[in-house]
Structure formats: structure tokens, C-alpha cells
């Protein structure tokens, strides 16, 4: 007993003397956190399925089968049978293949929307936080206005601009929602960097201003923004589903995407509820995964959090 206590104590002292960075410290905490592990596992499995979907899926997303179409009647959609483990959908396509292939599209929509929002948000936040003054005032005023519009309303108004709904409009609409959030967050943490010692030191050493901003301020300020991006991935997928439900989703009937499938399945709820249930559960689990991961990242990166 006493030896284990001693070794444990020793490693702890070693840890301290090693002087780990905040990031590696955060990773160490994450590895021990069951919540983080659950989130990471869900996200990992989702990404792997999405990447391998075209290889695992037995059929194409738009491929209709006579065997399934023949049994398609008003009030009846064929259930699981030989060769079609989850049965068919409302157009006689293999539901199992579509579920698998949809993971790819869902990930694509979520990631692209988040990344676009993130990039624009980072540019705005960096400009505002680095320059201050009137640049900051103007950019933050616009950001505040965007924040004053409830997020789904904002996404709707952007998506409604397009002549016809498509996957691109969904991605852009959902991306716009993220921009003000990322920009505000980054500006705040950039501002707190501006007067910190290492930035003053760099400036005093004669480092050029762009280099100070990009190499000294941005890397130290971006942590909370990345955490927010993980959480935004979950809402992005949910918002995309909501847009589909309102008829602003992808108009391509051959495309398989969970939000779209869920929205379309609402008309067949009493005929074959499974068509809605599987995409819904997939969305819930994936959104949960990103949320768990994001929340535990936030906690791990929080210097106050000794938990």
C-alpha cells in the first residue's frame, strides 16, 4: 500500500517538475474522463462509418429495387426482408444502405457548415480583437445584430434567399449562424491577450504586428473557439434537419442525409415509423457525441477546473 502511495506521489511531483503545457495537461485529464471517452467513441465510430460508408453500403442511395417497389402501396412500405435488413423506404430504395450513406452527407453538412462559420468567425474575431478601435466597433455591432436574431430565424432567412433549396444553401445558412458566436468568442479572448505580458514582450522585442497577432495572440486565444466549434457541430446537424423539415433542405431526392430523411419520413409516420426513428436516433446519438466531447473539452481546458 505504502509503496503505491509513494510512487503515485513521486509521479505527481515528476509531473509538476516536467512543467507540462496546458494542452497536454488537458489531454491527460480527457483520457481519464468517462464522459470525454464516450463522446470521443461516438464521434469516432460516426466518422469511421461515414468514411467507409460507400464501401460498406450494399446499394446506392438513389437505387430503387423492383422487389421493394412492388410491395409499395399507399399505407404500406415493405419492412425488413432478404437482402434488405432494414426494409425499403417510401420510394423502394434500400433503407439500410441509405442510413449508412447518409452518415457521410450528415457529417459533410455539419463539418462544412461549422468550418465555414469558424473561418469567417476567426477572421472577424481576429480583426476586431487585434485592431480594436473603430474596426472593432463596426465588426462587433454587426455581430451583435446577427446575435439579436434567433439562430434558426437567421438560418431560415439566409436559406430563403436561394432561388431553390440545395445542400449548399443549407450549409451556408447553418454556417452564418455560427459566425457571430465564433467572432464574439475569439474577440473576447484576443482582447484579454492584448495586454498580457508575452504580447508586450514580443512587441518590445520588435516582432512585427501581424506576427504578434498571428503567432502570439491567436494560438493562445483560439482554445475556447475550438471547443465551441465541437458544440456547434451538434447544433449544425440539428439546424440542418430543421431546415429540411421546413422545406428549405436539399431538393435532390436521391441524396441520403439523416435530417432530410427524418423530415421526409414525417409523412409516413403512421405507415412505417422506422423510417423516421432510425435517422432520428442517429441524429440524437451523434449530436450527443459532439456535445459530450465539447463539454468535456471545455472542462479540461478550463484552468480553474481541477476536477
Amino acid at each position: 500500500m505504502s509503496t503505491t502511495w509513494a510512487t503515485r506521489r513521486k509521479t505527481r511531483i515528476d509531473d509538476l517538475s516536467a512543467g507540462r503545457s496546458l494542452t497536454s495537461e488537458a489531454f491527460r485529464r480527457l483520457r481519464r474522463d468517462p464522459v470525454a471517452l464516450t463522446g470521443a467513441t461516438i464521434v469516432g465510430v460516426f466518422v469511421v462509418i461515414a468514411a467507409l460508408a460507400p464501401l460498406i453500403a450494399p446499394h446506392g442511395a438513389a437505387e430503387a429495387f423492383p422487389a421493394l417497389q412492388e410491395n409499395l402501396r399507399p399505407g404500406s412500405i415493405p419492412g425488413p426482408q432478404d437482402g434488405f435488413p432494414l426494409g425499403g423506404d417510401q420510394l423502394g430504395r434500400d433503407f439500410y444502405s441509405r442510413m449508412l450513406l447518409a452518415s457521410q452527407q450528415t457529417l459533410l453538412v455539419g463539418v462544412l457548415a461549422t468550418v465555414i462559420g469558424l473561418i469567417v468567425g476567426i477572421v472577424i474575431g481576429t480583426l476586431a480583437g487585434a485592431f480594436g478601435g473603430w474596426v472593432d466597433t463596426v465588426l462587433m455591432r454587426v455581430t451583435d445584430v446577427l446575435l439579436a436574431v434567433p439562430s434558426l430565424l437567421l438560418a431560415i432567412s439566409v436559406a430563403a434567399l436561394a432561388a431553390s433549396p440545395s445542400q449548399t444553401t443549407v450549409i451556408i445558412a447553418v454556417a452564418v449562424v455560427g459566425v457571430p458566436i465564433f467572432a464574439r468568442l475569439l474577440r473576447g479572448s484576443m482582447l484579454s491577450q492584448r495586454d498580457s505580458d508575452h504580447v508586450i514582450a514580443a512587441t518590445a522585442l520588435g516582432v512585427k504586428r501581424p506576427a504578434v497577432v498571428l503567432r502570439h495572440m491567436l494560438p493562445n486565444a483560439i482554445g475556447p473557439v475550438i471547443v465551441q466549434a465541437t458544440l456547434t457541430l451538434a447544433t449544425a446537424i440539428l439546424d440542418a434537419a430543421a431546415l429540411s423539415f421546413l422545406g428549405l433542405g436539399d431538393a435532390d431526392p436521391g441524396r441520403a442525409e439523416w435530417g432530410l430523411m427524418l423530415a421526409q419520413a414525417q409523412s409516413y409516420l403512421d405507415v412505417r415509423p422506422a423510417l423516421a426513428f432510425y435517422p432520428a436516433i442517429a441524429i440524437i446519438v451523434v449530436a450527443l457525441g459532439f456535445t459530450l466531447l465539447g463539454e468535456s473539452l471545455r472542462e479540461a481546458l478550463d484552468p480553474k477546473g481541477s476536477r
Partner: protein
Amino acid sequence: MLRFVLRRLVQVVPTLLLLSLLVFAWLRSLPGGPASAFLGDRATPERIAELNRVLGLDQPIFVQYGRFLGRVLTGDFGASTITGQPVLAEIGRALPATVELSVLALVIAVALGIPLGYLAAQHRGGPVDIATVIGTLIGVAVPVFFLGYLLKAFFAVELGWFPPSGRLSIDVDATNVTGFVVLDGLLTREFDASLDALSHLVLPAVALATIPLAVIVRITRASVLDVLGSDFVRTANSKGLAPGTVRSRHVLRNALLPVSTTIGLQVGLLLAGAVLTEKVFVWGGIGTLLADAITLKDYPRLQALLLLGALVYVLVNLLVDLSYAIIDPRVRL
């Protein structure tokens, strides 16, 4: 206090002006311009030119914006391209339905959320806490419209406990006074109408309440945990105050400040959620107006809803700031 209110109201003005500018620019950036968007399939070059002249779209852009602003300030948002009626009147008629729904949803969320969050914090790490936290995480991850359909399929269709859609049963004869069906029933002493309206409200309100509920529970829990660990709570406990007194006078009062901010922020979520919930339950409120405006590309209506939605959101958050002064006497406005 009054000075603070006035100053905040003045601060709201530039935000709304900028928003109006954005909405104005938004309408201008429609594919082919507003005229062809309004005309839709009937658009011919002559007609577009004609409509541009009538709408004043051939004027310089500054003049156009000035006129637009003038009209908006006098409450003239134009006529809906679907019904041909003034947009503002339409919104006025639909508003009570959405307000009724949102208020009940918010009441559910607050009345359940604060006690649940408190309970979870008090039993931190226990089964109640874990169940609550998991519940809130799932609550946020479920698409609102899907939950609506689930509730409808189970409680309305399967069990028949509640009506599946609408605000009133057809056979109930209710007098319209204020447009708030529940209130009207009480005012005119037609209590059966009130009850009927309430039973229609339950399912959509529960569906709409889930996300705000989850958020309020989480914030309350975090905030109570924060306060429970503070010195003055330890002092209060150690000087022998009754647990009930510590709870209500020390913990809850201090923990409620962040919670009230969150409640204000939920109003935006409610507006967005209402669009989805109303569509599921065929509610006929603001959300339905918005959903129809989207599918039929009714831009005057969309524009009015966007501006008014943001106005309400901004004003509610102003009210929340004012509530700080009541909750926390240290906050001087």
C-alpha cells in the same frame, strides 16, 4: 433605474437600425431583385419594370432605404403576397396563439427546470444528478419537430388523452375577445372552452419546452454548485441557520442571477422552436405564418417577422437586465 432603462433603449436603436439595413439589403439581394421575386412565374421584363416603378425600385438606393425605414417605422410592412392582406394585421391576429404557446412552454421550463437543477446540484454525483444531466444532454439533442410528432403519435393518437392538433375543438363554441383562447374562456365564463383550449396546448407546449427546460436545468445546476461551494454558505451553515433558510435566502437567491439571463435567452429559442412545433401541431400562430412565408416566398411577411422577432428578443433581454436589480440588490442600474 429610469436612466438605465432610457440608456438601454437608446442603445437598442443602432442595433435595430443596422438590422433594418441588413434586412433591406437582404431583400435587394434576392435573385433577380424583389420585383421578379414577387411576381414569380408571372414575371416578364415589362411587368418587372412596371413593378419596379410602382415600388420605387428605380430610385437611388438611399432614397429607397429612407422610404423603407419610414414605412417600417409607421408599422407599414406592406401586404402579404399570399393573402394580399397587410402583414402587420396578419401578425397581430396570429400573435396570441404563439404567445399563449410560448408562455406555457416557458412556464413549464422554469417551473420544472429550477427545482430539478437545484435538486441535481444538491445531490451532486448521485443517481438523481446523473439522470438529470443525461436527460438534459438528450433533451438538447432531440430534433424538436421529431419530439412533437412522437408526443402526438403517442399521447394523442395512441392514448387519445389530448387532441392531436389545432387550438380548439370544432364543436366548442368560444367567443373571441382577446384572441387568447384560454383567457377568453375565463373572461366570458365559458370554462369548457378554456379547458378545451388548455388540453390543446399541453402537447405542443411540452414539445416546445424541452430545449429551454434542458438549458435551464443545466445552468441552475452549475450555478447552485458554484454558490454551494462559496464561503458565505459555509458561514451560514456553521452559524446554525435552518437548512431551509440557507437554501432560500442564501443559495437560491444568489444562484438565480445567471438563470434569469438564461431564461431571457430562451425567448429566441422559443421563437425558433415555435416555427417547428406549430407546423407539427397545425397551430396557426406566428410560426405557421413564417413557415408558409418560406414555402411560398412571401418576402414582405418574412421581412416583417424577422424585424419584429429581433425586436422582441432585444426587448426581452432588456427586461432580463432589469430583473437583475430585483434579484440582486447589489446591482445598481
